[in-house]
């Protein structure tokens, strides 16, 4: 067993040292980034069985658990951390083939976005959550600007919206602290029932807005398409694969553990459903492939939020599985699309016609991932779609089920348009040289098939994570038990 603090501490150390690495050797930063993410995965793996048994609480600075900052790593946090660091690992492999100007800064920001997201899911302290959200978003603002040109505008918009979000969140933190007298999540959860209902309502809404921005909820999500379109591919990938997952985690943590009330979950349910259908409808319109993927991500986020906020154990499990799948699939989609874009020299879908015969790996990756998202049998999306429909019918949400399926049909419409263009139309443009992405594509494809054919692989973590989320009593007991 290795101390889990290292998941945050080592990337921090590495990113502080990154400029020095750059001075030593030009190639070092990308290798260091890869090694660090790999190390994080190892640390998580080493702790796996222990966490499946019981949640680990890490007291930072040696101070007793509920009184200062502590990390809480239960099955849910472990799952999310695996997602985040796994995404970062895959994208680091992809990054080996990329050349960035100021690569030391790129990789230090990249590591910090990973560490920030990991911190978001592991922390057990409300204000610490805010700090990690800020680390993640500031790294994201900066990384977005890496593409130059239009990306400044995207970054500025995200920055302003994120700034408003952080104000809302801080207000919420202030109210909570004044009422409860503690910032520890478990202590707040323990006395949430005593808080005056009106104050609870206001505070919860403040958090809903603050964290909803990270979780890409409608109507707080209009920065997302701009950012995903303009940011470098690896950044779009980590944002949609890792950061949005951390956002969902934070949302779930706040509305399941902190303020568990059906009325708030209902808000989330409706917002998620609106996000889903709106995202799909708009994605269908897009001519720009990255923008299309961005709106599709939004829609998926909406779907996950809606399903999780059904609040039954089956639904939470389905939502979490969809979250895992979405991370895997979207990263594959983004890196394949990135290669296709650079091969065609254009983001326009029409210009990608016929690339299937030239850029085989990328086109294959795109197709497999698209089919995974659309839920073709034997791919991972099928299992989660089955679970989602099943659990939403189980919760008597007939309308939501119809909506989800309608959205799935729209999704088919726009993804297949691209796939057909890739394979069955004639090449129109001159193909440019691009990076080789065989390793990440193979790894992700294996995961897609692995989870599609043998989903039991993550059944146990999912089950435990769902159980942890549903029952906030165990969370409180684990942290406050010593008192």
């Amino acid at each position, binding site marked *: 067993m290795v101390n889990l603090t290292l998941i945050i501490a080592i990337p921090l150390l590495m990113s502080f040292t990154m400029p020095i690495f750059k001075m030593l050797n030009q190639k070092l930063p990308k290798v260091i980034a890869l090694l660090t993410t790999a190390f994080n995965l190892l640390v998580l793996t080493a702790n796996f069985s222990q966490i499946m048994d019981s949640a680990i609480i890490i007291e930072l600075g040696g101070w007793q658990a509920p009184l200062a900052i502590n990390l809480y790593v239960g099955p849910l946090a472990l799952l999310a951390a695996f997602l985040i660091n796994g995404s970062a690992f895959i994208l680091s492999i992809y990054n080996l083939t990329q050349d960035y100007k100021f690569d030391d800064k790129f990789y230090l920001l990249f590591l910090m976005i990973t560490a920030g997201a990991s911190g978001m899911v592991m922390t057990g302290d409300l204000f610490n959550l805010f700090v990690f959200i800020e680390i993640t978003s500031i790294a994201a603002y900066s990384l977005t600007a890496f593409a130059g040109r239009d990306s400044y505008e995207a970054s500025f*918009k995200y920055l302003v*919206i994120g700034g408003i979000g952080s104000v809302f969140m801080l207000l919420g933190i202030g109210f909570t602290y004044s009422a409860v007298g503690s910032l520890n999540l478990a202590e707040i959860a323990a006395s949430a029932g005593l808080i005056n209902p009106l104050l609870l309502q206001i505070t919860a*809404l403040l958090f809903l807005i603050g964290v909803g921005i990270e979780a890409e909820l409608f109507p707080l999500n209009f920065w997302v398409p701009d950012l995903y379109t303009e940011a470098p591919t690896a950044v779009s990938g980590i944002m949609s694969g890792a950061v949005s997952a951390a956002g969902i985690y934070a949302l779930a943590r706040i509305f399941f553990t902190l303020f568990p009330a059906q009325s708030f979950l209902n808000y989330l349910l409706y917002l998620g459903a609106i996000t889903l259908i709106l995202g799909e409808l708009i994605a269908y319109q897009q001519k720009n492939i990255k923008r299309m993927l961005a709106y599709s991500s939004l829609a998926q986020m909406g779907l996950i939020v809606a399903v999780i906020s059904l609040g039954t154990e089956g639904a939470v499990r389905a939502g979490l599985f969809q979250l895992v799948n979405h991370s895997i699939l979207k990263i594959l989609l983004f890196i394949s699309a990135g290669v296709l874009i650079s091969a065609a020299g254009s983001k326009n879908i029409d210009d990608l016609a016929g690339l299937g015969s030239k850029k085989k790996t990328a086109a294959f990756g795109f197709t497999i991932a698209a*089919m995974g998202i659309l839920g073709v049998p*034997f791919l991972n999306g099928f299992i989660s779609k089955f679970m989602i429909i*099943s659990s939403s*019918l189980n919760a008597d949400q007939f309308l939501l089920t119809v909506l989800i*399926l309608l959205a799935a049909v729209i999704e088919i419409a726009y993804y297949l348009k691209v796939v057909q263009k890739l394979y069955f139309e004639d090449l129109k443009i001159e193909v440019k040289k691009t990076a080789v992405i065989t390793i990440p594509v193979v790894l992700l494809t294996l995961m897609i098939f692995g989870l599609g054919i043998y989903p039991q692989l993550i059944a146990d973590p999912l089950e435990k994570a769902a159980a942890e989320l549903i029952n906030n009593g165990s969370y409180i007991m684990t942290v406050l038990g010593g008192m």
Partner: protein
Amino acid sequence: MLTNYIFIPIAAAFIAYILNKRNRKAGAVITALVSAYLLLSLTALYGRWDITQSFNLSLMGYKIDFLLAVNPLSWLFAVMTAAISILIALFSINSQENFKFSSVFNLNFLIIIGSMIGIVFARDFLTLFIFWELMTWTSFYLISAGKKKMAGRAAYRYIILSAGAAYAFLMAAIFIFQQTGSFAFDSAAEFLVANSPAQSIMLLLVISLPFIVKAGIFPLHIWVKDAHGNAPKEFSPFLSGMMLKIGIYGMIVVFYQLSFFKIIENTIAYRGLPLLSYLFALLGAVTIITGTILAIRQEDMKKLVAYSSISQMGYIIIGIAIATPLGFSGSMLHLMNHLIFKSTIFLALAAVIYRTGTTKMYEMGGLIFRMPLTFAAYLTAIIALAGIPPTNGFISKWVIYQALIEKGYLFLAIAAFFGSIASFMYVFKPLSTVFLGQLKPQHQNIKEVPLLMKIPMLILILVIVLFGVFPGIQMNIINQISGYLGIETVNYTLYSIQGANGAWNSLLIFNIFSAGFIIALLLFSFAKKSKLVGLLDTYSSGEYITDAESYHYAYQYYRPFDRLFDNLAAKSLTDFYETLTKNLVRSGEGLRRALAAGKLQNYALYSVLLFVILAAVGWII
């Protein structure tokens, strides 16, 4: 092991894909071998209706049983699939020489074969759904691989309709699963019978949606024309011959095994037939009429045959929907026969396309002298399609007419007769324009297709006549199916079938026809021969004729007839669907322009607005 029948083709698919990259013919050879293996091992399975196989899986907290079993019905469909696949694979060994997507073709084709066998062996909703989706997706890629640009659009329409219907199916299946705790057909049937009829009927209608789409039944038939017309030429016979039928298979499962007929037994009836069944029969009738009229209007031979497939599906649906022993047997007969003669037609057309490279009929003519065997195959097949003895097509239609007349369904009978007569019009059109008439100058040097492409056509001609004379072969398995589904059986001998108003004796008719044929042959051989003269060697009021083509009347062949239905055809259902999607798209467009207008200040406003609105909602509640 029933799983062998499913997974051997699927595994072979990937081998075929890899080998085909090295050798263009390898894929088709493997497909042929695998299909032959399937056919052989399926014959060994005949009569062993007790074989079942099941897997229990505890998946993410759901206890799921996957059930496979073989029964006469599924056996018949599996055999049909394997048999037609052999012929198509043989045919495509040569015909795919210049086909860009031949590796993709063989990959997807083998997966389709495997998943179709999976579909018919499935005894529970989930297994059925998994293989159904697999088949839909792979056939999507196959249709997309068609030559023309329209193929993409056609595939697109196909997948969207199919997927929408399949999701509806899944939803209903999961609903039943939650009530019964099992996906199996048996427990579902028990539940549906015990449940309130209204809900059961709704569920079953939803469950039958994907089958209706796949069978191309009005009003969900809009994908058929373009998909069949534009799919790769080797895939069209399978698409039209077999994949439409798998929809019928699904309908039979819904009607009998999921007790749809049992549930609606006591609802309002018309002439002893529950109204819902009558509605299905009526759908069949409408399908016959629209399919026929639209087929007559077509200038593209593959699309023409595609519409003809739609109308033939109508017969099968009528027979099954009226649910009499004769009707059911007639449908099953027609189902088999349609597979046989429709594949023949498509293969003959594929041979023509292989040589000429076009599907527009007015660009061809006079191919009879260049491709005699292809012509013979086509001729036999259209005789069967039009329902003329002594071919198999006549017998099945006769049995269906018998069933309709027996019960006195006037409208349905009229539609059936109309379809039969009018089918003559549309099948004659390609015959006359493609094979007869004047040979186009650019087709002077065309040769008959290679041997490997001839063999499948020859086999099919023989089978058409064989079943035309001995329908008893087919009736044997059909009666086993009837027995299995709990329908009364029909009396038959090897060459006769007992109808309501009398028996059909095909041997007798065959002898009469043979006698007539021999007399005609004698007359033809001994009577004075007509003299062959050159086309331009003719008298025309002092004008010299220089252009041979103007003597071949091929474009807008049935114009006066078409004019009758111009108004009807203009209001195409496709337009309706397109308007629907366009409006959906437009609503998305409006939202997009209003909400995501790139105005940062609005985005900021949204967050405050959301807070205020949710707070207000919280206040009110």
